[in-house]
Each structure stands twice: as structure tokens, then as C-alpha cells.
């Protein structure tokens, strides 16, 4: 059975480095345009992150994975290793503990021997109903989705800006574009995150660091299971395939699937006197 560690621990599982040519055969390796990238994934067991990890592993990238649950992290890491990631390091850590961020991040970068991409995929959906009744529940959502990423990004921004290199890819959400009654606590945490990431881009893009605001629409993952209409949500493999390409390019603001750029443009212009009466 899975065990949720009560106290955060940091573990290191570094495998012998294999060259990417050994690790991935034939066409798989040929897809990699830049040689292996050193990628840090924070929140590695999230559905979208895991789907991206598979694609990165297939092409022989070097990965360092961080997640809370040791059992889940172990199978995600095993999958990436089997697919041919040129390096796998991992740490079990509860990223809600901002005090540990510096140690986790330094460990990761030492394990990878540098950093090309940091992908921040930590986050919780939370329960809107609970959060309306109980501030502690709202606080938890805001902490995991906003405060913890701000702490991680502050450290990562300073590290990458000094080196004039790197990509910080941050998973926000279209839910942050306009507060709605069905999930405004989650939405506000993502709105805060979007504003922070946009501002950070404005600060360090000129230093040569790509800062990406990623806004997925609803995607079929464990997080959205059981939601009304979830059968029609976007396929996580397709979302990951476009994200991996967007991260290679270092796009500023990414909507996945792309149609959400249009949908949200429409939702943003609905006048508030109409919007406040809608059931969204």
C-alpha cells in the first residue's frame, strides 16, 4: 500500500550516467534537437508532468524528479529510467515546506550537473466547498499552488539569471483568468501564480532566461477524474506532446489545447453584470 510520508524527507537515487545514444535507440534519439537536456520536474507525479516525463525520457533527457509520495515517485522514475532517460535523480519531498526548497533545488542541480529546464507542476485542485467554509482549506490551496511555487521560483530565478540561461516552465491554469463560483479559490491561486510568472518573465527574460506561463484547459488526469464532462477533456498525451515542444521553444504564454486561448478571450470580455449571474 502507498505510504504518505508524515515528515518530508529528501532522498537521492542517482543512477550511473549513460550516454543518450546508448539509452535511446534509432528514431527516438533522433527526435532530440539539442542533445540531452537537464530537466528538473517539481510535482513529478502529476498527470501532466508524468506524461511530459515519458516524452523527455524517450528522447534520452537527464531528469530529476521531486514528489511527495515515495511509492508513486518510484514507479514514475522507473518508467523514465526504462524508457532511456540518460540520468535519473529523484527526491521525496513535501514542497509545501518552503524552508527545504534551497536544499532540494541545490541537490537537484548538483545531481543533474546544471539545469536547462525547471518544470513546476506542483498543485492541488482542493475542494471549493470546503474552502468556502473553512479558511484552513483555502489557505492550503493558496499555499501549495501559489506560495510554494513563489518560493521555488525566487531561488530558481536568481540561479538562472546569474547564468543567463535556462527555462522556467510553470503550470498555471486557465482557471486563473477569471474567478468563477465553482472554483474561485483554486482560480485565485492560479491567478496569483500567473501574475507572478508574467512579472518574473518581464524581469529576467532580458537576462536570457525563458519564463513560461502554461495554461492548460481541462485535461483527463487523476486530478479531474469524476468531474462532469471529464470524458470530453483533453487527452493528456496530446497535451504533453504540445508542452514538450513549447518548452523546447521557450514560448512565453502557452494555452493547451490551443483552443483555450480563444475560449478564454471570450470569457474575459463577458461584462461582469452578465458574468456574475452565470453558472460557471
Amino acid at each position, binding site marked *: 500500500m502507498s505510504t504518505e510520508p508524515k515528515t518530508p524527507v529528501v532522498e537521492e537515487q542517482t543512477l550511473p550516467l549513460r550516454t543518450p545514444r546508448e539509452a535511446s535507440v534509432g528514431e527516438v534519439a533522433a527526435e532530440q534537437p539539442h542533445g540531452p537536456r537537464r530537466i528538473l520536474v517539481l510535482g513529478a507525479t502529476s498527470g501532466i508532468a508524468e506524461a511530459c516525463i515519458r516524452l523527455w525520457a524517450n528522447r534520452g533527457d537527464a531528469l530529476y524528479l521531486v514528489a511527495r509520495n515515495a511509492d508513486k515517485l518510484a514507479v514514475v522514475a522507473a518508467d523514465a529510467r526504462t524508457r532511456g532517460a540518460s540520468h535519473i535523480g529523484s527526491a521525496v519531498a513535501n514542497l509545501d515546506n518552503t524552508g527545504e526548497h534551497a536544499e532540494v533545488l541545490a541537490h537537484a542541480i548538483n545531481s543533474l550537473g546544471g539545469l536547462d529546464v525547471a518544470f513546476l507542476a506542483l498543485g492541488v485542485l482542493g475542494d*471549493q466547498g470546503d474552502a468556502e467554509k473553512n479558511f484552513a482549506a483555502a489557505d492550503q490551496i493558496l499555499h501549495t499552488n501559489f506560495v510554494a511555487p513563489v518560493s521555488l521560483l525566487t531561488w530558481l530565478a536568481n540561479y538562472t539569471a546569474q547564468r543567463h540561461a535556462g527555462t522556467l516552465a510553470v*503550470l498555471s491554469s486557465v482557471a486563473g483568468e477569471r474567478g468563477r463560483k465553482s472554483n474561485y479559490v483554486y482560480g485565485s491561486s492560479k491567478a496569483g501564480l500567473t501574475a507572478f510568472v508574467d512579472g518574473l518573465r518581464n524581469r529576467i527574460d532580458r537576462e536570457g532566461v525563458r519564463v513560461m506561463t502554461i495554461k*492548460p484547459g481541462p485535461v483527463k488526469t487523476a486530478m*479531474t477524474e469524476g468531474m462532469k*464532462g471529464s470524458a470530453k477533456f483533453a487527452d493528456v498525451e496530446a497535451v504533453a506532446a504540445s508542452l514538450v515542444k513549447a518548452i523546447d521553444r521557450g514560448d512565453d504564454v502557452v494555452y493547451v489545447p490551443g483552443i483555450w486561448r480563444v475560449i478564454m478571450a471570450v470569457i474575459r470580455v463577458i461584462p461582469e453584470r452578465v458574468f456574475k449571474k452565470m453558472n460557471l
Partner: protein
Amino acid sequence: MPSSAELDFNAPQPTEAGDKPAGPPPFESWGRYPEYNAELKQLHWQGDYPRAIDGVHHGALAVGMGRSYGDVCLLKDGTLVQTTSMNRLLDFDPVTGLLTAEAGITLAQILDFAVPRGYFLPVTPGTKYVTLGGAIANDIHGKNHHHAGTFGRHVTQFELVRSNGERMHCSPSSNPDYFGATIAGMGLTGVITWAQLRLKPIVSRMIDYQGIQFHGIDEFLDLTRQAENIEYTVSWVDVTSTGKNFCRGIFMQGDHSQVPAPLTVSGKPKLTFPMELPGFVLNGATVGAFNSVFFNKQMKKRVNTLQDYEPFFYPLDAVLKWNRMYGKRGLLQFQYAIPWEHAREGTIAVLQAVAKSGLASFLAVLKAFGDVPSPGMMSFPKPGITLALDFPIKPEKSFALFDRLAEMTNEFGGRLYPAKDARMTSAQFQAFYPQWEKFARYKDPALTSGFWERVVGGQLGVRGVGK
């Protein structure tokens, strides 16, 4: 549960089974018959089970891609736990070809990984869209049964999780009784979380293929004997023709090419069958015409060619959802294995009965099973001839024919394949699989299926699904 950042556009509203009598069921088998409502839950992680069935009162069953035809993958008003999100690779040894993966991985996903690395499935059915767990649970067979036996023979170990939370490591030496009961165990002994499979080396995607026309069962049997050393054999047979064309067909045989060639990943299928055809489209005339065209498409008595493995093994996978061709009512499959003693007379008798009935069968597949034993207690294949037929469902006519064919199978000492059945009776099942009572001892009390309830349920006094 860890989660990523996505939009919650609608407040979470878990769908409850039984709330919606109307509308399509959340999970269908490939034959789309019978149609049962059920609650469908996803297993994302190995630790999700048995927690996922806490508080379930009406039985549960693990399901994968829903490629079995009848009701082995259904449970009326029960809880289905789908394994397809639990599809991680766990380990691969490039020297021995031993692959360990979670049970929800599909054979298509295994091939995408294995083929570029010079490995292939040791046994593959006619579709690659089945899960590893489903392949074990139905102990599937393929065109190389006379060489390789069933899928279960190539499974070295797996984990079986029981509904009481017990996690059993099963292999020929560890819990060997549960190992044998779970292979071909129809998902009833527990949920397989991961399994290890021995892949086989290949140097090319290509198959050295030969197609040979035959007329009559004796020519088929001659070709079967001549092809003893060829790894893959299967025949398509025209079941609509009578007289001098009775039991005409094409004997298809092949071996993996030994000439090294690029081991690329297969492309994704681009075609999806666009809609359900109305029932009348498939009738005696159209199916007869199709069968004639198929037979005469191969102009020569014998054709030799190099063929990619995709069209050789998975011709129908090129069109997703091809079962829509059979319309809303769906299709019934029928597959028997009749032992050599009665194989010839039994096959002739069944083919005559089918031809006489005038009920069309598009795809009739004839093959000789070999004598490689399966570790599976309830495994279907046995040495002799197997014939697979499918029919659009026309309640009065096709059910009557089916019941007659099942009885004939029984008289000839054969048996039917649960993964392709929606009709066999309790008495027939118990005659086909006399070991069923021994098997029932390994069954997990919380798990059952539409099939099991139909053929055994009443007798054991477990929950009756029929109500």
C-alpha cells in the same frame, strides 16, 4: 492524490452507477452486447487498489481496453476498475528481453517501446489494443500457438492484489497455484498490478509472408502439416460458399524476416469508423460479395511477399472502432477449439451449419492449435482446430444458430472461448471446463463478471446479476 494544475470548469460531480438508465453504458465490450450499466473507476497507481472498491456492494471487476467480445469484461450494476492509466514501464533487460510493466499498458505501447530496441511480443492476438493484464486474464493466443503456446507461457511473474489488501507475488515457484489460476482466470482471482513478460528478439519489422489458396478442409490440413516449421499460420475461410467452393480460403503463413532492416515505431492509425451502420447493410448478399472479393483479391494460387508486421498481425487495427460496422446491436463472436480426434468432422459440420443458416460471417478464421501446454488452469486452446466466426446480432436467428453451434462443439469434445462468448450456458461451460470448481476456490470473493454470474453464479449462490 497528487495533482496538476488544470481547470475545474465544473464542480466535481462523481458519476453514480444506476443514476442514468438512459444513455450509453460507461463501458462496453467489443461486441457491444450485452449492454450493462456499471460504475467505472480508474486505477492510476498500484496502491489505488483495493481502496478503489471500498464500500462496493455489488461486486467489482478489473477491466482494460474492452476488447473481449462478450461479458467477461462486464458486470451489471457493479463496479469496474479500469487499469489503462496504470501503464508504466518498470524495467527492461536488453539482453534477456524481460520486460516488467504495470498491467494497464497496452500491447501497442509495449511494441512502441520494444520494436526500436529489437524485440517483439512472444505471442500477439489480432489486435494490439489489449492490456497486458487482459492478455494474461484471457490467456490470449495468436498465429504462433503451434510454436509458442499461449501468452501466459511467456509471463514469468506478476503481482496479484486481493480485495482484502493482500499483495501476492506469483510465479511458477511463488504462489504457483494462484499463478496458474490467474492466467486465463478472467480477472476473477484478483487485480494484477504489474507483470513481467519475456519478449523475443527481431531484426526487422518485416514478415516473410506467403498466402496460399485452398479448397476444402483437407487442403487446409495438408497446408497446416507442411507449415509445421513456420512460426505464424492462420487461415481466412469463406463461410458463405457451398458446393465446390465450400470451405475455400487463404492459408496465410509467415516468419519474422531475418534480414536486418530499420526498426522504426509504427505510425498511429488515422481512420476511425465514422458511424454505426444500419443493421440491414450486412446481409447474406453483401457479406457473400465481400468474401468473394477477398478470396479473389489474391489472383494466384500462391503469393510470396515481405509484409510489415502491422498489416500481417493487426489488419483491423488500421480502422479504430471498426465494431461500429455491426451497428447498434453489435456483434457476436463464436470461437471453438475441437481436439484432433473430431477436428475434421466437427469443422465440416459447423461450417455446413453456418452456410445453411444463411447468416453472414465476415471474418472466419481457421487455425490449428499446437500442443504446447499453458500454465493457465482455465486456458482455452487445446490441440486441434480452432474456428472463429462473427455475426451481426439478429436476436432470433443468430442466437438460435449460436446455441446450436455451442451444442455441436460440445458433442465434438470441443470448447468455447469465454473471451468471445456471450451465450454459452451454465451446463456447457461446466462441460467445457470441468476444472471450474477447482478454479472457483481461487476466485476473489469481491470480484465477479457478467460471464461468471451467467455460467456459475446461480450454482455458487453468489450475488445473482440477472435479478
